[in-house]
């Protein structure tokens, strides 16, 4: 690994860059929080950040410690009730990107944030859906950021908390059309090793490798035979400014980048 930045820093930078050109982003708990705040300071200064506790158009002066933090209100466009936010903004179709984290994901981008193991007798109980299941359905597209490992990139997720491309593009497109979902589903997954998009069958495909990462390393941390783009790109390394923003402004304590 290049000694000048960590895999987590590369993941956050790559995720932030994906937001270039986007207008309204619903911010999930955890890693999405730092990625979107970096994006607002770099590639997407006009990005409207939406936090589920009831803020539209946040301009956080510091990295919010959680999705409930006074810095997301000060200077925001609107403070709403949670009901208004979910009903009018999200179900109303105003969200371009729902940015989610995940504990488990499958090849079609279906997400588990509920339990590891059996639901009634889990090995690990996770935080649950929160707003994720409705974000996955109602945001126009879904971005995912998560560290990858054989435990998190699995053939079959233990619980489907949030819908991705279901059993594949054909089924997903039919059900979305029949049930009138607003969202088109997952479009990008950014990990500590690379960037994935979804191909015409609705399956995840490795399109870019981060500096230092290898196809072998990717295969070793995915529980299915992952598709690899014919010409895999190399993710440009973080710039000095991106690293400065993460290290000095957003996460000086290294909570996200350890």
């Amino acid at each position: 690994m290049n000694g000048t930045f960590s895999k987590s820093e590369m993941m956050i930078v790559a995720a932030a860059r994906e937001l270039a050109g986007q207008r309204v982003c619903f911010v999930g708990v955890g890693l999405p929080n730092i990625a979107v705040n970096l994006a607002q300071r770099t590639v997407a200064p006009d990005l409207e950040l939406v936090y589920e506790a009831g803020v539209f158009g946040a301009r956080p002066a510091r990295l919010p410690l959680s999705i409930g933090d006074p810095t997301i209100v000060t200077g925001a466009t609107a403070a709403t009730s949670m009901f208004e936010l979910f009903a009018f903004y999200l179900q109303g179709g105003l969200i371009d990107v729902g940015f989610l984290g995940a504990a488990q994901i499958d090849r079609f981008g279906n997400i588990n944030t509920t339990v590891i193991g059996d639901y009634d007798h889990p090995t690990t109980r996770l935080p649950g859906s929160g707003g994720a299941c409705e974000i996955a359905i109602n945001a126009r597209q879904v971005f995912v950021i998560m560290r990858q490992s054989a435990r998190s990139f699995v053939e079959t997720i233990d619980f489907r908390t949030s819908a991705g491309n279901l059993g594949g593009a054909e089924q997903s497109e039919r059900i979305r059309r029949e049930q009138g979902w607003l969202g088109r589903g997952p479009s990008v997954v950014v990990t500590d090793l690379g960037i994935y998009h979804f191909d015409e069958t609705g399956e995840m495909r490795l399109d870019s490798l981060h500096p230092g990462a290898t196809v072998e390393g990717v295969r070793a941390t995915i529980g299915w035979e992952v598709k690899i783009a014919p010409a895999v790109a190399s993710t440009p390394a973080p710039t000095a400014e991106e690293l400065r923003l993460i290290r000095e402004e957003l996460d000086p304590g290294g909570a996200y980048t350890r």
Partner: protein
Amino acid sequence: TAGAAKLPFFPLRSYFETDLPRANPLIREIESPYGDGVVYAVPPLNPDVAIVHAQRASAGGDAQVWGLLGCQKEAAFAADRVIVVVEELVDEAVVRADPNRTIIPGLIVDAVVVEPWGAHPSYVQGAYDRDNRFYLDWDPISRDEAATQAWLDEWVRGVSGRAEYIGKLGAERVASLRPSGAAPSGSVDYGAYR
């Protein structure tokens, strides 16, 4: 929302194609009575008591909040009894000068508790910040029964009230939780109409 509005359920465009309705049978699929598709229904929640923290309230219980609203208004209207905890007790005229900021009317409030710093270790917009150190310390304490009991003995059972608890935190820590600066709203003119 259903609980506050005394509705038997609330429809949501959510849960489609997930395992959540199977895990929680109270989440039920329903057909639109207007024949335009399926949505999911969730039942009302009606708490026995809602405790809401607000920046200020009148003695009559009219509570005003700014900052994140979450579902505090819904919780208060859905509950049988409502306790409002405030940073500051204000004259009714202060409330009446800014009615848009009132989220809960005294009509549904059973008790007002004046308790500055009452939301610690959480925050109150404009008054104090989240005490993150507390949450980090609490994580290992809450994993251990003996440590939790010792903490309760020292910080809950061992103090006479909130003032002593805050005093025990120390002036330096309390000062560090103050906002780093002011960000006042502009005032608006509601106009007088006789």
